[in-house]
């Protein structure tokens, strides 16, 4: 009897749990587009490709597609979402060219506008590149190349602003948002800031009451050789050990000299860069930093294989030859005039100058035995646990001596625990704070926030129906209320996009060109106008 009662209870419990599980799994129907068959007009319906992976520029994955679906449903446009895992998504959109429109985003590499606009809108970047809208306009092609060839910053800014104007008129994208970057540190820490490129400068960091700084992050570095890496977690550490010829200003991506002594002299044809080097700088192994080291670094990457050196081609692909004119002067000749090359020289990966002696000595193991000129020296690495660096007592830059004796990069995989760790003071600072944890980090620690060098967008396939029609694209762009959608999806953790490049770049260009007010911004939200265009094109609206 007892047994029967017990088994009945078990069965009931199981049924209850199953029911709960089922209820949890049931997907809420987010939109319902009523089909009004009585009206004679046709409904606009298109397929939107979406990805199911968290990205720095889009932390809500394919929910973004649902947001757009809802916005457009208000006007009677039906969006069919096809959401795929990241790798399949890239294959489907890039190679197989599926979908009428797609969601994607970009994290800038070198802080140059060219890295956004040329990458997306030059016709040479079609067929497997990032120009997946298949946008091909001769005038824009010419202007993009012209901007690459001039090293006059003001002129470049003017050209890019004009290009943005054409892009808005052509409505190639819906620029959606820029994801914010977050870091948090304990109240004892001072001297930290977020750079838009993610460049981590720890020279000024102090921790009250101790000489050791522990930085918690979500993943370990892959390698510590600037030539071999492409991920942020590797770059973060490399940036402490190594330095490049140039660097970025702390607040934006304007270029300033680092190991170079002053800005380069660029020849009139834009091809020859003469760079003087700072003197009396030594690598951590005692090797002198000089023109030979620069030549070695660049030539090593020129001959490297792309599967080993992922950024070699991007950073130094334009270089024809490097000459050490004297001990402290290096001359770089480019195949073509490429103005963004200067920005490449400031990057935290690929561009940092390596000690030739160390690279030759360690060979295959160079990635685990980093030797640079930077403020910190590599000490130890327990893989997937932590990397320890020590202060470089002979750091050349007397004005920016590191303030802590030791930096530890510690892996804490789980995002919410990372926040716990900084709140508890188990680590001094963390990065990679998910939107859901922002509030907690703000309450328990000091939160740092900055618009990242990224953009999330929806692109139209401009080369085939239905979106080969410019007016139809304009209609769709104007039907999406980006600012309220972005607020609903991301709260404070993303900034609605107004232009085709991140706001700090836009601001920098506008200052240079003497223009203001988001010159060349994408078409603003205007539902009435959007519907009017739809009706004009023979589509039913609501």
């Amino acid at each position, binding site marked *: 009897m007892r047994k029967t009662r017990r088994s009945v209870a078990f069965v009931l419990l199981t049924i209850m749990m199953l029911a709960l599980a089922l209820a949890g799994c049931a997907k809420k129907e987010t939109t319902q587009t009523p089909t009004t068959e009585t009206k004679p007009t046709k409904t606009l319906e298109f397929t939107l490709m979406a990805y199911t992976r968290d990205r720095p520029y889009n932390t809500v994955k394919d929910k973004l597609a649902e947001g757009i679906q809802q916005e457009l449903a208000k006007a009677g446009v039906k969006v069919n979402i096809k959401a795929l895992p990241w790798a399949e998504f890239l294959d489907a959109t890039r190679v197989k060219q599926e979908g009428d429109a797609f969601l994607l985003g970009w994290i800038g590499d070198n802080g140059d506008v060219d890295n956004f606009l040329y990458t997306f809108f030059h016709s040479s970047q079609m067929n497997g590149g990032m120009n997946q809208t298949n946008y091909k306009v001769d005038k824009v092609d010419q202007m993009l190349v012209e901007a690459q060839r001039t090293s006059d910053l003001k002129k470049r800014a003017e050209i890019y602003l004009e290009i943005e104007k054409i892009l808005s008129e052509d409505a190639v994208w819906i620029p959606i948002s820029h994801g914010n970057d977050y870091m948090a540190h304990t109240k004892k820490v001072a001297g930290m800031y977020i750079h838009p490129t993610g460049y981590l400068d720890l020279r000024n960091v102090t921790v009250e009451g101790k000489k050791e700084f522990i930085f918690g992050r979500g993943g370990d570095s892959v390698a510590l050789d600037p030539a071999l890496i492409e991920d942020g977690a590797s770059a973060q550490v490399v940036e402490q050990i190594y330095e490049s010829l140039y660097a970025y200003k702390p607040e934006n991506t304007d270029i300033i000299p680092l190991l170079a002594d002053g800005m380069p002299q660029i020849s009139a044809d834009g091809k020859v860069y003469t760079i003087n080097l700072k003197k009396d700088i030594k690598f951590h192994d005692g090797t002198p930093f000089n023109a030979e080291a620069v030549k070695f670094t660049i030539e090593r990457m020129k001959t490297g294989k792309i599967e080993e050196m992922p950024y070699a081609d991007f950073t130094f692909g334009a270089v024809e030859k490097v000459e050490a004119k004297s001990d402290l002067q290096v001359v770089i000749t480019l195949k073509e005039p490429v103005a963004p090359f200067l920005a490449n020289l400031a990057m935290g990966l690929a561009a940092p100058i390596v000690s030739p002696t160390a690279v030759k000595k360690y060979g295959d193991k160079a990635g685990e035995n980093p030797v640079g000129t930077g403020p910190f020296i590599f000490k130890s690495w327990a893989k997937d646990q932590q990397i320890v660096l020590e202060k470089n007592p002979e750091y050349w830059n007397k004005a920016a001596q590191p303030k802590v004796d030791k930096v530890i990069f510690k892996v804490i995989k789980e995002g919410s*625990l990372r926040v716990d760790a900084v709140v508890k003071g188990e680590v001094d600072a963390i990065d990679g704070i998910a939107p859901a944890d922002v509030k907690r980090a703000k309450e328990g620690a000091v939160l740092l926030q900055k618009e990242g060098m990224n953009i999330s967008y929806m692109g139209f396939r401009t080369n085939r129906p239905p979106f080969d029609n410019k007016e139809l694209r304009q209609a769709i762009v104007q039907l999406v209320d980006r600012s309220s959608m972005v607020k609903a999806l991301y709260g404070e953790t993303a900034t609605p996009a107004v232009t085709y490049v991140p706001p700090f770049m836009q601001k920098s260009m506008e200052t240079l060109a003497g223009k203001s007010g988001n010159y060349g911004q994408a078409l603003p939200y205007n539902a009435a106008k959007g519907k009017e265009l739809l009706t004009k094109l023979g589509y039913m609206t609501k």
Partner: protein
Amino acid sequence: MTSYIARRLLQLIPVLLGITLLVFVIFHFTSDPTQVILGMHGTEQQRQALREQLGLNDPLLVQYARYLGNAVQGDLGTSWMRKTSVSSEIAQKFPHTVELTVVAMLITVVLGILIGVISAVKPYTLVDYLSMSLALLALSIPVFVLGLFFISIFSVKLGVLPINGRMEAALLDTFTPPTNFYIAYALFSGKWAYLKDLLSHLAMPAVVLSGATTALVARMTRATMLEVVRQDYIRTAKAKGLSQRVVIFRHALKNAMIPIITVIGLQFGHLLGGALLTESVFTWPGIGTLTISAVEAQDLPLVQGVVILVATLFVVANLAVDLTYALFDPRIKYA
């Protein structure tokens, strides 16, 4: 005996063939290695060149045969993500997982059997209901929930245990073990300060990891013990005036051990392959964490390596279980 073991180990071959082929086929249809290796930057020409170089244009079976050929010679390839050799990557991570698993299984064996026996000796009492309900709870609660719950209590609220990781950062920096068997090294070289820190880091993951298996073993022990204690020879033993302890542990438990051993052995083999969620929650640098990052990065050679390890461990654990049967039941012989 030896020939029996050899025959059983031969069974590993079809298992490994099947499972590696499966992973190969799944990856073939769901991921593009050139995307994984070259990322967003590669041009179509570079992708083509890489495809050629990796032999991705060959028929699937040719690619698979080539992989097998290398694997048989001990070359599991190079990780696409980490650019290091897969076997060295696994060799580095395995000790971390072994130490965690061994401790978790110790907890499982001691606690699981004890709870099971108590429940069986006093069936349908409060103790029995309480421990069996607890066991049901431990079995049904997802490990990451349990892990986060423990952390929020013991680390965040009470502050008695570290949040995660294997060792405190500053201590780890001065710790120089010859292998990644940290605990074994600290134990045998008498480095007590390190050992204390290691154990405080180990406590939560080990308990969390042992939760479900302890529950399973407890339930299994209870069920088989209940069967056994009803048998005549137990009544005879009791009638002879043997003490309760001797009857239960020497006569009853020994006979109930076979199914318990099966569960324990299989769980052991299973956990040695890396506890994905537990390791991930506690940033335990073992096979589980490695597997997750390999799958996330679609790193085929690394995933294959881990899969081979897991399958091998499982088959070996199975064999070990079968061999231990003879220890408990002398009637079982292997030839």
